[in-house]
Structures are given as C-alpha cells and as structure tokens.
C-alpha cells in the first residue's frame, strides 16, 4: 500500500471515522489517520473539526508523526486560537528536548503559528534557542526572529531579539550567519519608520564576506543580497569588496552569480568609469553572464531580463557577445523574445550584417508575436545603424512580398518610422506599399499607411482616391486611424488644394459634426479654423518639418534603470518595474534603492527627492499637447531633437511651427520671462535627458600672481575667482614678504563691465606678520555701477595697507558669471536661436578634449552651462546648451564632437556678441579642468 490511497477517501461520515481513528490506541492506525487528514487538507477540504484529536497525537516520540501534526497545526491554529493553546506545553517541552532536530522543529513550527497567546510563550524558548549549543537550532531560531517580527514587530524590539540576532552575525557557523543576515534584511525592509533598524558597518560586512566563502549556495545569496544594500564609505572599500566577491561569478548556482553581479554593478558606480579596475571587472562580468544562457530556460529568462538592464547600463560589457543571443529553434517563446530585444540593443555597424540575416530568418518562424517582433527589430536596426538602413528596407520589402498578412502590417508600421528617420530617401518604395493597402486591418498599420500617403501626397498620383477609400468607413475606424486620416487629408489639401476641396470638407464635417470623440472634434475644429482664417499659417503648422526620431526610444528611463540595477536578480528586474509597482504594504518608504554615487559629488540629497517623482510615466506638459495634436502614429514616443525643433514629442512640431507663425506678429515674450514660467517643466525635461545634477564643485582657475612682492613693497598677492553658492568670490592669498607687520587692509574695485562691488569689507588678519600668509575671501555682488572694460572681464583692483596703495588689473574668467538659473526652456531656446541673427554666431575650435558627450554635458552643468538637448548626427554628437550671465545676457551654444576626435567645434550665439570670446575661453578652461 502506498500513500496515494489517502487522496481517494470521499465517503460521507469521513470526519467522524477519522476522529475515531485518531483516538485509536494503536500507533500505526493513528499515524494513518493523521496522514489522511493531511491529504484532505492538501486538496482543500476543511478538516479543522478534528483539531483537538490531532493535537492529542502531538505527544509522540515518532518524529514523522510529530511533523505531520505540526503541519496541521500551522494550517489551522489561526482558525482555532483557543484550542491551539493546548499545544503550547508540548512546544515548550520540545524546545528542551535533547535531540537538536526536535528542538529546532519546535521553534520553527511555533514561529509559524500566528496566535497571540502562543507568541507570548514563544519568547523564552526562542531566547534559549538563539544561544543553543547546536548550530542547527541556532540557524532555525535566527529565521524564527523574522517570523516573530512579522507577527509582532514591537515585541521583537522590546525583547532585545535584534541584538541577539546581531550577535549571530559573528557566529562561528556560516549557515547561522547566513540565516541571521536574511532575517535582519527582512526586518530592516519591513521597518515601519523607513529607517533600517540594524545598520551595516565595515566590520559586519567583513564578517559576512568571510562567511560567504563557506556557507551553502542559498546562504551566499542571502549574504550577497544583503551586501548589495550596503554603501561602502569610499572607493577603496568598494574595491576590496568587489575583489572578494568576484570569485562568486564562477559558482554553479545562477542566483549566486546574479546576486554577485548586482553587487559589482552597484559598486562599480562608485569608481571612475575609465579606471583600470572597472575595465577589468567589466571583462570578468561577461563570461558568467553568457554562461547563464546555457542553464534551464526559466533561469535563462531571468538572466536575459537582467542582461537587458546591464546592456543598457553598461553597453561595453557584452558588446562582443552578439552571437550567444541568437535564437535557437527550440528555445521557449519567452526566451526568444528576450533574446531578440538584446540583439537589437547590441546591434552596431560591425555586426549588423549578421543580425539582419538572423532577423530575416526569424521573420519566417511560426509564432506570430515572435515574427512581429523580428520585423519590428529590422526597422529598429535601420533607425539605429544608419549605414544598414538600405539593407533593412530591402529586407522589409522582401518580407512584404511574402504577403503573410501580419508580416506586411508590421513591416508597414516600421517603414513609417524609417521614413521619419530618413525623410526623402526611400520614397521609391511607396508604390509597393500601396499595393498592400487592402490587406491592412490593424489600426496601427492602417494609421501608418495613411500617414505615409498624407506625408508624401504630392508624389502619389492617386493619393486622393486612396484616402477617399478610407473615408468611406470613417465611423468604423478606431480613433487612431480617424485622427490620422483627418491630418492626412488636410495635408493633401494643403499640397493639392485644387482638386481636394470636397474631400477636406467631407472629413472636417465627419470629424466635427458626426463624431463623439472630443479629441477628433477639437482637432477638426483647429484645422477648420486654421484653414479658413489663415491658410499660410495652416501650412506652417501642418506641413512643418518633423523632428527626427532616434533609436533610443525604447530605452528605460535612466533613473528607473538605475533603480532596477539595484534590484538585479529580483522580481523587479524581471518585470522591469520598481518594487512599489507590484509589492504592497509595509515599509515601502525605505525600500527605494539608488545607485551609489562617486565620491566628491555633493548634492545627493538634492537629487534624491526628485528621484521619487521620476519613475513611471512622466506626464509632462509636452505629452499632453502631444496627445491632442500628435499624428497618432502610435509610434514610440520620440525623444530626440534637431537644432530646428528640439522637442520631446512628435506632436510638438505642429504646435511650435504654428506658434512661430501665430505669434510672429504679436510682441514676442522676452525669453527670460518665458524661461521663468516654463521652469518646472524644464526640470523634468532635464531628468528625461539624464541631466540630473551630479555636480561636483565648479571649475576654479588656478591662482595667479596678481601682485608680486617687488611691486607690492613686500605684499604679495596671488588669487583667482570662483563661484560658490551662487556668489562670485575673489580668493586671494596674501603674503607678507617684508620685514615688518602689515595692518589696515582695505580694497576697492574700479567700475567694471558687470558692476561688481565688494559685498563686505576685506578682512585680513591683523597684523599680517612677516612671512605670514593669509587666505582672504572677498564676496562680490554684481550690483555696482557698470562701465565697459576692455577686455570685457577686466577688473581693476586697489588694495591698501598701512604701507601704500597698490593697483593691479586682473582678467576674470567668464565662467564665474554663469548664473545658476541659466537653463532655458526648450521652446524658448529654439525661438531664441532662430531670433538671433546669424551674424552673431561665432565659431571656435577647442582642442584636446577627451570626454564623451555625457561627460562634457555633466562637466558643463557643474559650471551652470545647461544642456538643453543632445542629438547624434552622422556619428557626431551635438550638444545644445544655454547659459545666462549674471547681468541677464543669454548665451546659446552648440558643441559638435566626434567620438574619438579630441577637437570640438563650439558655436556661440548671443545677442551680445562681445561676450563670445570670453565664453569660448571659459568653455576651454572648464573642459580642460
């Protein structure tokens, strides 16, 4: 006889029968009965009525039976709290049992019984078990503290269990340490105050790292996960932790490997990105990640989701491993889809040929989702790797020829994106697309096709007929298609007004009178009024140049990415969502993780609150307008920029073009004012573009000799200017080289271009003894009388002491005049750029700068030069930046850089071109600092 028979009892009166069996004298019969009870419990029958009878079987020396009874107790104690008390005595007794297995079993089970009265009795035995001589009991007791904390947190704190748990971190047995760490992490996470109850410090981390080498694979995971929450105090400590963790990458257990990867990824943030250590570590990370792909498919899936994050955070690590992500015929679909995603992320010019031939292969597979994604991937390759665009387009055309319905539709959607990216290059294929018009039944594909027809209406002879054919079923189309059709027909009308008047009337009527959809109606009215009042303006609005789309549309938002990197290996990294999106309840305030920053950065505090607002979808003003006016391509949100129209949403070009036209006659808003009103959205935009301030101190030129001792009759002054906390400072080292002490120092500034005057009298230690130096700091305010100087930043200074008055002139670096509020709103930037006459544009070259665009951007930001937009054109990075001088002059600049080429080209545009030279010098100095 086997145990399976217990599953088959379905007789009536079963409970009664079981009751008598449970009370039987025969041990064997009792055991059988308990087994039956457990089997019923498993399949969901209610056997709680047997509670007293089962508890009666508890007192036994048979360990197997005892375990079964305990199992029953855990399940039903909550529903029968009064009777559960009957079991307490046995538990307490078992906790004293000579057999450590039974002691552990008792304490383990007691922790699982969530009845207040039992919990009271648990404290004493638990305290003893935490100090038990047997490590098996101690490791079980450690987990029990976490259980108790879950039931009654204050009890754990009051009874001092936390301290006992902390002591276990130094236990001689590695498994006890591991469980204690796990329990502590959980308690910290659940802490209601949001403040961890137990802080990690260097010593505990060291103990953990030692235990790491010796404990079970699971213990290693607990320890690594807990270390990942620790922030080392400096770079050296981070390095030494990394060194001790790296061997874990060779562990057979994927969880150990991924948890180690998490710690390493996090700590690498603390080090300079080009340090040898980081480069070496990056090399070591690739092989274990690749190896994870030969594990079981489920583990592979988790690994791939994480690799997706790693590839976005540090693209270099896996850049040469494209081949391992090729899809195998027998991979489960979820693995296939993930691999495809990573392939696109890794695609670049050198491997694109291989990738394309693979994608083409995939597009003929069976699974519809997979095929669609493969087709989409081809389009993304075209957008990402420009030289391959031609090949991608011809591949897509081949696929369209297969006539497989969903392939055709998907291909048309991506071809629309390709048109957006490379306008006026592949229009020759439009005729092929039009052949497939009839087969399109999905809104997205129909919308895309209509957009193409509208956009290129002048080249398609029968565009009016084609659009008219869509118009017949206007009411049945989805909103997306309706909006698209409306815009397309208006475009057509503007391009060929002669023969399409009737058509446009028709669609405007449909949209404004027959539709219940407010979006559609509003758009209809806008078009109608534009067309009837000012067709020229309508032209400018509707037919304006569109911003190009970029390849980065599917990247995770940087702050979310950073948060997810802190959660590598966990569910959050699988969902690509922050834990708060799927975990409810306790302690969420504290669970938000952020990557550590490099030492030297000052404003962690400043940037962290904004972190909180950033995750998820950001409802910017832009996106709302986008909804209203966008072409509804359903395409990915566009986050790119062109010099002409650096906006974040595809719809904006319509609006901005329109605004330009509409507002051209009205007195234009002064840019400063506009910038001020638009300030909040600027902050968000900055965040989207990853420009969150990560500033260290701004650039300060080295001190120069201002007054040599020979001229100063023994007084020597070296000095420089800086900008700290929004104030210009004159920093001087005054040295007395004379034989007698100096007293009665004072300073005066001549009138100057920026109206600088001392904010306070000069303070110098008095007397300044012979051979003594004093660091004097003089705050300056730009509030004094202005007089133009040559050069512009020239400053004439007079210093007086008891010996004489000394005069000298210094040329101030321009960057100290860069104001903190120099971030211009994108739109204002655009219009300002346009407004300033081209004659005011001055170009400079800056040599020997070996920084990436992002590094430049952050460096400039530390000096109050704000990057408004960044884009990549033909391999060149373009940075558009704004800055404002303290006297209110706005300066716009464009930095052109080619990766690998140390020479930058700077174009400066401002209404006051006199400052350009100074700006150039300042840029040069900042970039070389």
């Amino acid at each position, binding site marked *: 006889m086997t145990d399976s028979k217990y*599953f088959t009892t379905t007789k009536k009166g079963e409970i009664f029968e079981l009751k008598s069996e449970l009370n039987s004298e025969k041990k064997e019969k009792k055991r059988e009965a308990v087994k039956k009870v457990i089997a019923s419990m498993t399949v969901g029958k209610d056997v709680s009525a047997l509670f007293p009878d089962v508890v009666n079987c508890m007192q036994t020396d048979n360990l197997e039976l005892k375990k079964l009874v305990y199992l029953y107790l855990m399940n039903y104690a909550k529903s029968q709290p009064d009777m559960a008390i009957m079991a307490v005595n046995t538990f307490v007794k078992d906790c004293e049992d000579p057999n450590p297995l039974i002691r552990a079993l008792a304490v383990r089970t007691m922790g699982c019984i969530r009845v207040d009265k039992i919990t009271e009795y648990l404290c004493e035995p638990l305290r003893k078990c935490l100090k038990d001589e047997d490590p098996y009991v101690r490791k079980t007791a450690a987990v029990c503290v976490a259980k108790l904390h879950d039931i009654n947190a204050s009890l754990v704190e009051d009874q001092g269990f936390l301290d006992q748990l902390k002591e276990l971190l130094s236990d001689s*047995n590695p498994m006890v340490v591991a469980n204690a760490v796990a329990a502590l992490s959980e308690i910290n996470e659940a802490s209601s105050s949001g403040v961890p109850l137990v802080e990690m410090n260097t010593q505990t981390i060291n103990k953990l790292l030692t235990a790491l080498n010796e404990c079970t694979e*699971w213990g290693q995971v607990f320890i690594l996960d807990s270390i990942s929450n620790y922030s080392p105090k400096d770079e050296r400590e981070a390095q030494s932790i990394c060194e001790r963790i*790296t061997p874990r990458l060779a562990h057979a257990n994927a969880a150990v*490997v991924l*948890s180690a990867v998490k710690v390493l990824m996090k700590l690498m943030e603390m080090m300079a990105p080009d340090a040898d250590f980081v480069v070496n570590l990056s090399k070591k990370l690739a*092989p274990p990640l690749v190896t994870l792909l030969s594990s079981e498919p489920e583990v592979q*899936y988790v690994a791939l989701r994480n690799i997706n994050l790693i590839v976005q955070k540090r693209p270099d690590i896996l850049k040469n491993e494209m081949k391992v992500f090729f899809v195998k015929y027998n991979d489960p679909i979820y693995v296939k889809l993930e691999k495809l995603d990573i392939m696109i992320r890794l695609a670049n010019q050198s491997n694109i040929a291989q990738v394309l031939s693979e994608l083409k292969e995939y597009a003929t597979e069976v699974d519809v989702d997979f095929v669609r994604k493969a087709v989409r991937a081809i389009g993304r390759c075209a957008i990402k790797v420009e030289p391959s665009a031609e090949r991608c387009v011809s591949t897509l055309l081949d696929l369209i020829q297969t006539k497989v319905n969903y392939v055709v539709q998907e291909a048309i959607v991506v071809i629309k994106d390709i048109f957006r990216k490379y306008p006026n290059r592949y229009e020759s294929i439009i005729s092929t697309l039009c052949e497939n018009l009839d087969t399109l039944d999905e809104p997205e594909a129909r919308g895309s096709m209509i957009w193409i027809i509208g956009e290129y209406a002048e080249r398609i002879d029968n565009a009016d007929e084609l659009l008219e054919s869509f118009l017949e079923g206007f009411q049945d189309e989805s909103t997306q298609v309706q909006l698209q059709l409306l815009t397309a027909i208006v475009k057509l009308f503007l391009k060929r007004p002669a023969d399409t008047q009737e058509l446009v009337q028709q669609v405007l009527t449909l949209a404004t009178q027959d539709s219940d959809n407010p979006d559609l109606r509003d758009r209809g009215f806008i078009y109608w009024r534009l067309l009837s009042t000012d067709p020229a303006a309508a032209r400018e609005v509707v037919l304006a140049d569109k911003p190009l789309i970029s390849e980065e549309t599917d990247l995770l938002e940087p702050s979310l990415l950073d948060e997810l990197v802190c959660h590598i290996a966990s569910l959050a990294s699988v969902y690509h969502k922050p834990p708060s999106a799927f*975990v409810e309840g306790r302690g969420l305030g504290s669970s938000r993780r952020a990557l550590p920053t490099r030492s030297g950065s000052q404003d962690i505090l400043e940037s962290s609150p904004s972190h909180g607002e950033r995750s998820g979808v950001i409802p910017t003003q832009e996106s709302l307008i986008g909804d209203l006016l966008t072409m509804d391509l359903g395409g990915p949100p566009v986050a790119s920029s062109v010099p002409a129209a650096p906006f974040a949403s595809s719809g904006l070009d319509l609006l901005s073009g329109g605004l330009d036209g509409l507002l051209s006659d009205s007195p234009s808003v002064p840019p400063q004012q506009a910038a001020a009103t638009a300030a909040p959205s600027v902050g968000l935009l900055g965040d989207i573009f990853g420009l969150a301030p990560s500033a260290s101190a701004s650039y300060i030129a080295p001190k120069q000799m201002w007054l040599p001792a020979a001229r100063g009759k023994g007084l020597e002054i070296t000095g420089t200017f800086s900008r700290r906390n929004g104030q210009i400072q004159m920093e001087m080292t005054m040295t007395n080289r004379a034989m007698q002490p100096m007293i009665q120092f004072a300073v005066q500034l001549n009138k100057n271009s920026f109206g600088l005057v001392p904010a306070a009298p000069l303070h110098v230690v008095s007397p300044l003894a012979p051979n003594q130096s004093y660091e004097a700091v003089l705050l300056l305010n730009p509030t004094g009388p202005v007089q133009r100087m040559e050069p512009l930043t020239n400053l004439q200074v007079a210093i007086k002491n008891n010996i004489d008055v000394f005069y000298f002139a210094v040329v101030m670096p321009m960057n100290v005049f860069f104001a903190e509020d120099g971030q211009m709103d994108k739109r204002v930037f655009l219009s300002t750029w346009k407004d300033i006459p081209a004659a005011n544009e001055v170009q400079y070259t800056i040599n020997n700068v070996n920084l990436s665009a992002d590094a430049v951007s952050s460096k400039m930001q530390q000096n109050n030069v704000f990057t408004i937009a960044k884009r990549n054109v033909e391999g060149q990075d373009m940075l558009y930046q704004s800055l404002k001088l303290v006297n209110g002059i706005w300066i716009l600049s464009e930095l052109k850089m080619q990766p690998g080429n140390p020479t930058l080209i700077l174009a400066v545009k401002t209404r006051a071109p006199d400052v350009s030279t100074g700006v150039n010098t300042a840029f040069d100095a900042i970039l070389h600092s």
Partner: protein
Amino acid sequence: MIGGLFIYNHKGEVLISRVYRDDIGRNAVDAFRVNVIHARQQVRSPVTNIARTSFFHVKRANIWVAAVTKQNVNASMVFEFLLKVTDCMQSYFGKVSEENIKNNFVLIYELLDEILDFGYPQNTDTGVLKTFITQQGIRTQTKEEQAQITSQVTGQIGWRREGIKYRRNELFLDVLEYVNLLMSPQGQVLSAHVAGKVVMKSYLSGMPECKFGINDKIIMEAKGKPTADESAARTGKTAIVIDDCQFHQCVKLSKFETEHSISFIPPDGEFELMRYRTTKDISLPFRVIPLVREVGRTKMEVKVVVKSNFKPSLLAQKIEIRIPTPLNTSGVQLLCMKGKAKYKASENAIVWKIKRMGGMKESQLSAEIELLQTDTKKKWTRPPISMNFEVPFAPSGFKVRYLKVFEPKLNYSDHDVIKWVRYIGRSGLYETRC
C-alpha cells in the same frame, strides 16, 4: 521570500500545497490554476503576476511546480530552488509524476519543511538530506548521530560526512561535453560552443583533499610554466581557452581566483565537479551539407551529406540525423548509403540513424518528398536539420592533466588511488539550417 509552494497535476488539481507566509491565502492556489494552467494561450512567461501576487513555475512532464510570493524576491534564486526541489524529489523517488508525488506526499511535506523555512531555502543537498529525512519513520539515533547530522546540515563541509572508509580507494572522472552548433546552409558557422562538465565519482576514505589540473590556458600560464605555445610545442599538447567555468560548492572559489588552482574535498559518490564553456577552436565532429530543391508545388528533393571530421581511428556512435519535412507531406522515398532512414509522419521528419561511423568518412541520403496540394499561402518555414551523436573525445580539446589526492590523516597516498578518466563528446543542439 517565497510565500508558498504548490504542486499541481496537469489538470490543475493540487497535489501538494505548503504555505509559508501569512500573506498567501488559499485563493492563490486557484489563481494560478485559472490563470496559468487553464489559460487558453500558450504560457508566455515562467513568471506571472496576478493581482500583485507573483507566481514562478517550472513544468516537468505533466507536473507543475509553482512558487508564490508577494514580495520582491530574488527571482533567480526562486527558480534555482524550484529546480533543486525537482532534483531532490527525483533523487528520492525517481521520476516526478503524479503517482510518485501522491505516493510520497508525506515525505515531500517533510522535505519542504526542512529545505524551506519561512520561505528561505536551507540546505538542499540530497546527500545530506538523506541522512536524516527518511521514509523509514523513527530511527533511534544516538546522541552522537544526532550531533553529527546537525553539524553536517549546517557545517562548512556540508556535503561530506566524516569517517568514510573504503578498502579500495578509487575515483572516476567523466569529461562530458555537449557540442552546440548552428550552421548556415552554406556551411558557415553561425555560432558554436561547447558546454562541458566534469563528473566525478569518488570512493575515497577519510576527508581527502583533491587537486585537479586541466589544460586551461590561464591556469597553465599561472603555474609559471613557459607560455602555452612553447609548452605546447614541446609536449605536443595545447592549452585551451575556457570562456567561463563554474564549480560545485565544494571547490574553494577564492583559491581558484587567486592561485588558479582547483582544490576541494569531494562529496562521497557521484557529483558534478565543474561546468565549463568554450567557444574557440572547437573541432566539430560532423558536418551536415543539405540540399533542398522544391520541384513544383507538389514535390521536393532533399539531399543530405554527412561528413565525419576526426581521427580515422576513432568511432562515433548513436548517430541520428533528423530532417524536417513539410506538414503536407504525403509520401517519402528514401535512399541512403549507410544506416537506416525512415520517414516518421507523426514527427514530420525523416530520421536517419547510423549506428557507428569512423573518422574522415562521408555518407549521403537522398529523399524525394511528395506534397499534398494546399491552399494555405503560407510558406513552409524549413526548421533546421538537427543531429545527435556521441564521440569518444572532447571536441573542445579539454584534457585532464592530473588529479592528486591528499589525505594526511590516513595512510594512503596519491599513488594508491586508482583513477579512471573518460572523455565523451555528445551533440547538444547541433543544427544546420537548410
């Protein structure tokens, strides 16, 4: 952490349900059944989120093993753990099937109680578990025995007990490699790698310390020997580049990292010492050259040539080539020079089996496939031709250089241990597109 663990049969009936945390209710059991097991479409992910509860599952034959949680758990750990649970059940009672699970449900509960505490995985080493979780019920243990069990479950060398004695100290090493290949129809290698493992069977007395030496380039160079190329020239052996390797938990990883030496105290009996992966200089044992010609709409001609590419003195075995055929195949005529070929309609493939084949040989199969007229416009997608085989060498070039055994407390030395080494190369996913 893991909040509960459920095992279902293919119909979605619960066979085992163990809840570890209070936040998981009974309805979780049903939620998984309704949303995953009974879901109409194919399962699109091994992780499912239903009403803020996350379900992880693995499926073995007809059995679903699912872990449930409401927290942000370590996902890779949960899956590794689920796989361990199935391994563990397998080593206790063989195949994981509905019948076996029902027959052993008490045992399974006992195991689940031991290996998962409040959702935290504990020691899952079956060797150790078997010392104290048995189906025999009570076994009176002496105090010493109990202490030994607990020290082993929690111990630093949790995988080996003290006091093992063998009359004959013996060990076996199997180097087992799986060659994976994806080749284009033109014979271009799209991707190839070897996934290898070293399986050791040890029958050694006491607590022996073993040192294992292989011809990995890094290890050999670290030993201060002349560079690999020089020594290769001298000894005729080459060092190979191992992309990555992973070790059984008994191997001292920190020592491997710093000294590049593989040293360990082995578990008793069989275990997997290391796993490794290579991608460079793989000698591909076979090459498949397909030629598919579609003659009109109702006929296809397929010609497949197989070439063996290894020393003529060696013999490959269990060769099987699987050539997929379209779904609308009505008949197949086959002609092959060697072995047996058969069209298996149920599998939509021609299966060509060759028992043995020497090195540097070549064989050919030609087939005429008749097709039914169909009205589906959709093209047949030509799945790749796959191949299975076994060869008596390691395609990566992996070599065991030594395995030294030290047991200072007992009086046997390295020389007294009888050692056996065997190399087997098998096909992993060995595919050629056609």
